[in-house]
């Protein structure tokens, strides 16, 4: 029987070690993670990092539709991949910025119950989508009928997040402006549901490249702080 006990103990030790150090200890330590303040002299800006929380209601829609299957939310450092140099993947929407978009830190996802870092990248990364997002109506059209914008797109159409209804009086200001082929019948209009609005709010709140306090890039990226205030 003693060998049985040895076996069990060895089993517990061999798995308990990674369990303790890789999962339990970091999870406990994570609870102490909080926002940090920018230092005006050092960082050239004020406020807290990370400044703005994401839109949780929209994130739930993001989760249940399985957007993570094709969209990541994680910029890799340039020694590993070229994510940071791709056009529009950071705050700077101009071509060839002077510095790559920074890779993400643990704090970027503070306040999110679960960070949707993603499974595959069949579509573009969305970590900093809020910066490059077109106007609201275009995002809605993209969600409603992706192929009306890109005929090669392999993105599903989320028609169930929109309702087609009888247009009463003046057309609704949120009604989708669709190309003829997709347009509803005469007198009808397609409007986003509350879920679609929440999802778009969430997508617009995705800005995970705020300068990190105490890092030299913070100074270079100071304009970001201005944008935050706006």
């Amino acid at each position, binding site marked *: 029987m003693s060998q049985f006990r040895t076996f069990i103990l060895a089993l517990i030790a061999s*798995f308990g070690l990674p369990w303790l150090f890789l999962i339990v200890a970091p999870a406990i330590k994570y609870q102490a993670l909080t926002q940090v303040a920018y230092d005006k002299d050092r960082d050239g800006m004020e406020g807290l990092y990370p400044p703005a929380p994401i839109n949780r209601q929209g994130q739930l829609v993001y989760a249940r539709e399985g957007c993570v299957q094709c969209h990541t939310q994680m910029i890799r450092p340039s020694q590993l991949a070229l994510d940071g140099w791709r056009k529009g993947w950071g705050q700077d929407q101009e071509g060839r910025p002077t510095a790559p978009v920074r890779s993400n830190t643990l704090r970027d996802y503070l306040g999110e119950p679960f960070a949707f870092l993603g499974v595959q990248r069949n579509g573009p990364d969305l970590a900093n989508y809020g910066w490059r997002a077109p106007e609201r109506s275009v995002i809605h059209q993209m969600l409603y009928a992706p192929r009306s914008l890109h005929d090669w797109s392999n993105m599903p159409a989320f028609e169930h997040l929109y309702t087609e209804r009888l247009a009463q009086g003046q057309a609704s200001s949120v009604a989708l402006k669709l190309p003829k082929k997709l347009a509803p019948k005469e007198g009808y209009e397609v409007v986003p549901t509350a879920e679609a609005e929440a999802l778009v709010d969430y997508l617009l709140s995705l800005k995970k490249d705020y300068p990190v306090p105490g890092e030299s890039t913070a100074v270079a990226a100071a304009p970001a702080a201005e944008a935050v205030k706006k």
Partner: protein
Amino acid sequence: MQTSSASPDTQADNLRRAAIDKSVKGPVLFLFLNGAFWLMASTVLGVLAAIKQFAPDFMGACSVLQYGRLQPTHINALVYGWGVQAGLGVMLWLMARRSGQELRTGKSVLYVAAIFWNIAVTLGLLGILLGRSTSMQWLEMPAYVWPILLVSFLAFAWPMVFMFGRTFRPEGFMVSSWYILAACFWFPWIYITANVALHCLPGLGALGAGINAWYVHTIILLFFTPVALGAAYYFIPKITGQPIASSQLSQIGFWLLATLGGWTGMQHYMGGPLPAWMPAIGAASAVLLLIPVGVVGLNHHLTTLGKHNLVASSPTLRFVFFGALFYPVSGVILALISNFSTGATLQFTQAWYGFQVVAVYGFFSMTVFGAIYYIVPRLTGCEWLSVRLIRNHFWFSVYGIGTIVVTSLVAGAQQGGDLNSPEMWDQDFMQLALNLRPYIIARAIAWTLITWSNVWFLIHLMLMVAGLGRRSSAPTLLEHDHEEVLPHAAHA
């Protein structure tokens, strides 16, 4: 074969085996049958998900059938509906046989647990399809499902541990039993950890994503792998009639897997927000795992050496042999996607899907098919009906899986190359989407082939469970010329 001339000793042995088989018959067959059903469901979903990935308009814009919902349903059906369920069946039978114990009490508990397992899986998969997905990999099922699955699993694990404890003979190293016993411990431990961390703690942000990746890797390495290896270590010596080549190698293989397996996973998010040491240690252990993988592969190779003709004739050995062959293959693929040089290219690409399929289907499921082809005739008292159906199952599975794994890896290299190509820095994803298309079409075709084989497997299994198999004392072999080569033990 020569039961008439067998000594009284062998006859007593056979009676004892029959009694053990009879005691676990009901629960094991229930698990196999339901598992086979979910497997078929999963492969059908695999076809649909693949089609939806290159043709999102296929079957309209119905919310239930969007890729983002179909793909997790497909994987979850494969993992929980088929994988864990069929794995439990094999574990229970193997543990009873290896420890020479009948299942004395608690059979009704096992039925209840198995029924609840299937109810929970059904609820969970419907939950994903109807819009309750959590979008955590392999844990997409709504949060209320996991306690049911956990309790059901424990209801099965407990009698197995009990059987093992009651008969432990300290002089022998029993590699099959060890693997299975370890799987009984690891699964609940991992499952509780991941679910508590992700569903009960107030929110772990990016660390939660890391724990999620850890969960997927450890379930593969510390549940699916030990169950499949336990079965391979049992059936390969059993059918070739040769003892396991090296006891030392099997011990090294076991303990290295046990020590390294728990550290892997976080490398899935290399270059991500996690503290750098986490992906680093994950990548290091994933590459180091090549040692136990190679050791076990070598051991199986040495055990089969000289008996390769049996691979052609015995359905069990054929499936187990190829399953065991896929173990080194999946180990190499894991190393490829985990290290920081090739892994950086293959990260977030189809290669990840390729790894899941090769590990869960190519390695685990093929081995379990072999086990099922051995176990079911002994439980039902009749032999498999048709050689052709078994052959059909084997070849369609092998070619299907091979196609999926190869195309996923090549697609991953292509996709990773496109993502990291400096020329495409200001391009949209058109080129990437177009380049991916042929591979995904190939995947859809491959899943169709596998679905075809699984439909027949399910029908074949249903006929067996219904007791409509061949009434014969000779097992169904794929090639009859070699029948006499088969050692007596293989029929026991």
